[in-house]
């Protein structure tokens, strides 16, 4: 919602682009074959398009709007997804704009009771979390998509019907110039919480909705307070409700507060303004401020039973809705998009067996169910549903300053990347139990610092990569032969050698690790090996490189041998 007198796309700081409708070839009577059509050019659809394009698959992206989504909506992007943005070649814009953060503060009534510190070290390139408005996220992704020769975005094109058949999917599309149909081999439904594709296919999200509602609002205000997450429990100025405050770029501040009673009253502009004024007064901000945008939110844990329906795959909010606490909506949506897109690209290219697509639901629905496990707990803490829950929550908060055992309750349980341990693509090597630390199979790699300017991710390939740890002056023959065996189509296998000593091997990419910090982060010894998927997740790892097992793991990660 916008202040009275302002239209949807009026903003204090952001200029919404206007994307014209262009007559598609189908409306000129031309027949076109489309390997993939993505419905919805929000952040999730755009990431999927960029990932497909990265693997050289042409994509058509349909969106009913003539611009980006209105309002700042999701504002937190995790380190994991900054790494994804790096792989998609768009991270520099995000780094320039986003506000990285590592700390938070938790208050109970008037007092600060807990200082949150997220795990972070100087060995990592990106901060654990960044605040950036969704408009910018969409803008940077759309700019990249619009300049990609593999991506064609069709704005002002609304999907109104879908017919999913065994050999393809037909979509009915409405445009300013009339309707047309498009046929695709595969469809990615990134059309959000109110997905038309989901509805047209007669599919339903299942799960629970919670009572507690939050008003989320953005204001523009000059303030020197650093970028930290502030959570106020029992905030005395808003009838003891919970308040969350985040800083965003362009002097925009996000204020979320719990709403009791009538929603219709709560969303009235006058009430929003007076609540915000009370909060600002409470935290000691006296600068003038302007209201930009607000919306109402209610926590739910809902998802589809299966994220795939024949040739249609659901990514992001069309597949699942999760509570905002922990910033998992957009972050998990982006992870869905990459996961579905690289697998689909490999199938379309004929590089992977179609079975690889069957790993999408267990991996990404697994991530959603993992969120659900903790979501109930964090929602009950943020918004106690009964007097009993409220009493215990307050008891914990009141204990927190002097009893460290109570602190984890106040921890916001932020998003962390999901480990695909139970995935059909993940390989449990015979000697994996010998690792005393490092990164387990199914988890994403850690982007360790290599030298002053470079990090591990800068060396990874477009497709699969291998990381070999070496304390000798050369690598075994079997390893050097691996690269040619594990190339996939036009995507070479990228083999990295992390060497503790000076190392001579002309054709290999060698990273010097004199301090052993990369060895330590990976729990590696001389001869350890990690096989890494295009999405940075570890297929399998070996304390002692084993050529046969690595080949098996590689085939498994491609869904089996392509006949």
């Amino acid at each position, binding site marked *: 919602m916008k202040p009275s007198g302002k239209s949807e796309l009026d903003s204090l700081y952001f200029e919404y682009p206007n994307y014209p409708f262009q007559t598609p070839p189908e409306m000129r009577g031309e027949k076109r074959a489309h390997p993939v059509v993505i419905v919805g050019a929000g952040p999730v659809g755009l990431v999927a398009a960029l990932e497909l394009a990265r693997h050289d698959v042409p994509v058509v992206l349909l969106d009913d709007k003539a611009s980006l989504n209105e309002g700042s909506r999701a504002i937190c992007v995790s380190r994991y997804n900054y790494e994804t943005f790096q792989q998609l070649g768009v991270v520099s814009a995000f780094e320039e704009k986003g506000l990285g953060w590592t700390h938070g503060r938790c208050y109970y009534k008037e007092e600060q009771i807990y200082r949150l510190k997220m795990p972070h070290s100087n060995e990592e390139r990106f901060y654990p979390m960044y605040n950036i408005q969704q408009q910018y996220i969409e803008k940077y992704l759309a700019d990249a998509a619009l300049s990609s020769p593999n991506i064609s975005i069709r704005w002002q094109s609304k999907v109104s019907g879908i017919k999913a058949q065994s050999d393809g999917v037909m979509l009915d599309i409405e445009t300013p110039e009339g309707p047309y149909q498009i046929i695709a081999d595969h469809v990615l439904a990134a059309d959000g919480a109110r997905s038309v594709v989901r509805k047209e296919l007669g599919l339903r999200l299942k799960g629970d909705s919670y009572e507690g509602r939050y008003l989320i609002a953005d204001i523009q205000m000059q303030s020197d307070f650093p970028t930290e997450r502030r959570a106020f429990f029992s905030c005395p100025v808003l009838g003891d409700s919970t308040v969350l405050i985040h800083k965003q770029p362009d002097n925009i501040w996000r204020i979320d507060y719990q709403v009791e009673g009538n929603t219709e009253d709560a969303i009235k502009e006058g009430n929003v303004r007076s609540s915000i004024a009370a909060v600002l007064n409470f935290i000691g901000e006296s600068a003038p401020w302007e209201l930009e945008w607000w919306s109402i939110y209610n926590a739910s844990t809902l998802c589809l039973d299966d994220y795939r329906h024949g040739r249609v795959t659901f990514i992001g909010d069309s597949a699942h809705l999760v509570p905002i606490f922990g910033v998992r909506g957009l972050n998990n949506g982006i992870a869905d998009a990459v996961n579905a897109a690289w697998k689909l690209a490999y199938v379309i290219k004929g590089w992977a067996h179609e079975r690889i697509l069957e790993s999408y639901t267990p991996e990404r629905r697994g991530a959603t169910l993992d969120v659900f496990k903790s979501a109930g707990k964090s929602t009950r803490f943020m918004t106690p549903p009964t007097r009993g829950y409220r*009493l*215990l929550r*307050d*008891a*914990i908060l*009141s*204990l927190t300053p002097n*009893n460290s055992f*109570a602190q984890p309750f106040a921890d916001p349980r932020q998003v962390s990347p999901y480990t695909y341990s139970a995935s059909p693509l993940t390989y449990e090597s015979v000697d994996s139990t010998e690792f005393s630390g490092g990164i387990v199979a199914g988890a994403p790699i850690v982007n360790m610092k290599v030298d002053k300017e470079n990090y591990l991710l800068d060396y990874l390939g477009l497709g699969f990569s291998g990381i070999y740890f070496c304390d000798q002056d050369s690598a075994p023959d079997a390893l050097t032969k691996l690269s040619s065996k594990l190339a996939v189509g036009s995507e070479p296998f990228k083999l990295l050698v992390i060497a503790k000593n000076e190392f001579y091997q002309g054709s290999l990419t060698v990273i010097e690790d004199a301090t052993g910090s990369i060895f330590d982060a990976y729990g590696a010894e001389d001869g350890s090996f990690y096989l890494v998927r295009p999405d940075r997740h570890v297929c399998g790892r070996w304390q002692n490189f084993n050529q046969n097992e690595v080949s098996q793991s590689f085939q498994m990660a491609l869904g089996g041998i392509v006949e």
Partner: protein
Amino acid sequence: MNVAMKFEDLEKVYDLLAEAIDRVGPDNEAIFLSKVCLVLSHKIGDLDLVEESIKAGEQNIV
């Protein structure tokens, strides 16, 4: 397993709790008692024992 408290000590707990409840006042007695339960639970470190105690506390109320 923990050994049950001596009766003389339990008598002291009786007095200590009564006096603390009076000190925090009627508005805070519920949160005070919840805090004490949480601290004791943390120190006891035995979920079954705590569950048993909660059930025992719930008996004969009303």
